[in-house]
């Protein structure tokens, strides 16, 4: 996109809409919104060339708070919306965002296949280990003994889902973890993710102060990953499998070619396709 001729550079605030978020005071998602607008400003992407796609949940409300194109779809189906848009309109910057329930439970199958397909989109999951919009039920990333939900009063009792491990095994091309306690670091990571060709996945630890108040302590517990990003899946696997889910940083950067069919009209005449049936 040609941005020459515009007089002023775009600031983070230029990417925000005037709609007031539904989020609770103190919600980590405010920090993600801020980091995302900083990242877009850093890249000086024209807002009309960006589309942010989401499903259902607290964090999935984010498109309406941005001044880009957006799509707030149905629960769990944000990734196929984003894949369809990007494949049909490859020149757009397509970001898909949402929460852990939307992405890993109802949308889990799409997560596996979006990693495999490796379309050049960025998937941002604001992980708070809980369904907030429905008032606090266990999500796929909730600890098995978390007993604060009326739905599972003894705790969900099942092993949590490890999204980064699964992303790696499924073929994601870029895997990172960020924390809302460091919005500038998150913004830098999002820039890297958006620039990286292929499917990039960023898990952002984003506390739910209402239903998981102990997540306020995340800001004291998160720390940079002790080693630099690797392009070796075996090394990345070892690191992710021994991870306590609180290391932040870019953990894997692959170089797989993105999926993008060429869109090139090769019909010499509009009725050419009929000729194969002519008698």
């Amino acid at each position, binding site marked *: 996109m040609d941005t020459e001729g515009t007089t002023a550079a775009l600031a983070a605030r230029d990417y925000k809409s005037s*709609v007031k978020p539904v989020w609770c005071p103190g919600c980590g998602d405010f920090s993600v919104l801020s980091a995302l607008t900083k990242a877009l400003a850093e890249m000086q992407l*024209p*807002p*009309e*060339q960006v*589309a942010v*796609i989401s499903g259902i949940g607290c964090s999935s*409300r984010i*498109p*309406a708070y941005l*001044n*880009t*194109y*957006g*799509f*707030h*779809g*149905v629960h*769990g*189906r944000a*990734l*196929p*919306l*984003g*894949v*369809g*848009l*990007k*494949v*049909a*309109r490859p*020149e*757009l910057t397509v970001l898909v965002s949402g929460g852990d329930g939307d992405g890993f439970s109802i949308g889990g*199958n*799409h997560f*596996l*296949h979006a990693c495999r397909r490796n379309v050049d989109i960025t998937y941002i999951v604001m992980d708070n280990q809980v369904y907030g919009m429905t008032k606090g039920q266990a999500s796929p990333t909730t600890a098995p003994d978390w007993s604060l939900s009326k739905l599972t009063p003894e705790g969900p009792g099942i092993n949590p889902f490890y999204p980064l491990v699964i992303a790696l095994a499924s073929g994601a091309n870029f895997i990172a973890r960020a924390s809302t306690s460091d919005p500038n670091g998150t913004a830098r990571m999002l820039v890297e993710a958006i620039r990286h060709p292929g499917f990039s996945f960023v898990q952002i630890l984003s506390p739910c102060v209402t239903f998981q108040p102990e997540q306020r302590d995340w800001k004291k517990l998160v720390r940079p990953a002790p080693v630099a990003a690797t392009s070796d899946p075996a090394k990345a696997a070892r690191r992710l499998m021994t991870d306590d889910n609180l290391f932040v940083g870019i953990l894997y950067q692959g170089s797989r070619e993105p999926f993008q*069919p060429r*869109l*090139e*009209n*090769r*019909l010499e005449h*509009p*009725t*050419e*396709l*009929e*000729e194969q*049936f*002519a*008698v």
Partner: protein
Amino acid sequence: MNPASVSIALAGSGGAGVLTSGNALLEAAAQAGWYAYLSRSAGPQIRGGESVTMLRICNDPVESPDDTFEILMAIDWRNFERFAAEIPLADNALVLGDADTGPPPGFLTALPVRYHELPLKRTASGIAQGRPNMLALGVLAELIGIPLQTITDMLNRLLQTKGQVALDAGVSCVTAGMELAQKKLPAVQRLPAPAPRSPGERLLITGNEATGLGAVRGGVRFVAAYPITPATEILEWLAPSVDKAGGTLVQAEDELASINQIIGASFGGTPALTATSGPGMALMLESIGLAVAAEIPIVVVDVMRNGPSTGIPTKSEQADLGMALYGLHGDAPHLVLAPTSVADCLFTTQWAVHLAEALQVPAIVLSDQSLGQSRAVIERPADLTFMARRETPASVSDGYQRYALTASGVSPMAIPGMAGGQYTADGLEHSPVGTPSGSAADHAEQLHKRQQKLSGFNYGRHWADIEGKGDTAVITWGSTTGPVREALARRKAAGHTTRLIAVRLLAPAQPASLGDALAGVERVLIVEQCHGQQFYRYLRAHYELPGEVRTFCKPGPLPIRPCDVLTQIEDWL
């Protein structure tokens, strides 16, 4: 029996090649100048199950099975009883079998038919790479009167990639088959010679291919696919074709993904389609509702099969009508259309793309296995003017309202890339700007807008096929139109006029137009291939039906035949 046509059933077990021979015969008959219609019935086996190819050859365009078959040929009789109900035989029908592959079932020879044996297998074994199904092709070609040269030309095209040996074997087998027929079989009354045709004036095409062609002609450039019987051939035809036209087809991980991929692509401005069958569409319904709310044009083709659940996946029925009309949650006005013939799969799909784009709404196209997997010679369709044309804002400014309340109900749709048009498409109820809203006023206004844009649109004459006059009318839809049309043509030939109304636009209902079409009608027969009378109940819900109303509702998988419809009318009048 219609003297202007001949119906042939070709049966055989796995690997016998009856579909190959049937299609070769169809192509040869088409090349010779006839019209023809081929349907098939197969068992559930993945590969090599018993199957029957049913072919009807005619001097005039034909899109219905006949009442009975004049010729039944079996390469072998294994599992034939599974198909017997689908092959009613004419009195004095010619039944041909090969004694070397076993005797015919007793119930067949007990019928008033002429049974003859032909040494297909033995004769084929005397020809290098000879195959009994190619001998059968020669026998049938001779009975019908297709010249050897026409068959040879056709084999040349069909077998050109298989090498000279295969071609020689094919020609030798056909020649030997023709000789067998001359020597061993009584002459049958042949069809009159076909009218001369100029090359290329007609198409030989399946309903599923015609659906794909209609989609591309309408402007579809993004297709998402998840395989399902009997819709897969639409997607397989579209894969290379939409790519050639500058678009693409993506095989999705499931139907939930395919419906959302097309919504995403269409949000980006690209006309988009997916094709599925009942179980797949059931999975898509939630997201079709999203496309209604967010006003994203999409086309979903449902090639119906016998349900519920997995049902009988390879056979036809018209029982997804209720789901297509009423399956969405909330008040969700959308389009439902149905092609009335193989040829009409092209028109109706192209029209559906046009309407969906013009009205920014999902369109469901209800085809079925009988239309989709039948192959027919059709007139080459005119260059139709129905194309995808979506209303977009000429220019967008800060005050842009994606869901502005307009007189027509259609609001100009900004497409990503348009500066100043940024909005969030949303399944949440929204204000005219597009921001989420729980207000009663916004909900009422947007509900009205989404209804108004459909109910206020002028669909023109294509909403139904209306033919004939008289005080008796038959109302039908979809693939049962073919047999109804033929039944009424026979009545007309006998001096009775009967009206046909085949509804193409099922939603929104067109009560004023149907009222006009039914002026002067005193009796209405409703014909559908559905045990639950879904079409009848739909008509009763949305239309005033005059006089006396009767129904003929028969489930699949047995096709409705012209005689079935005739009997209904004649028993009544």
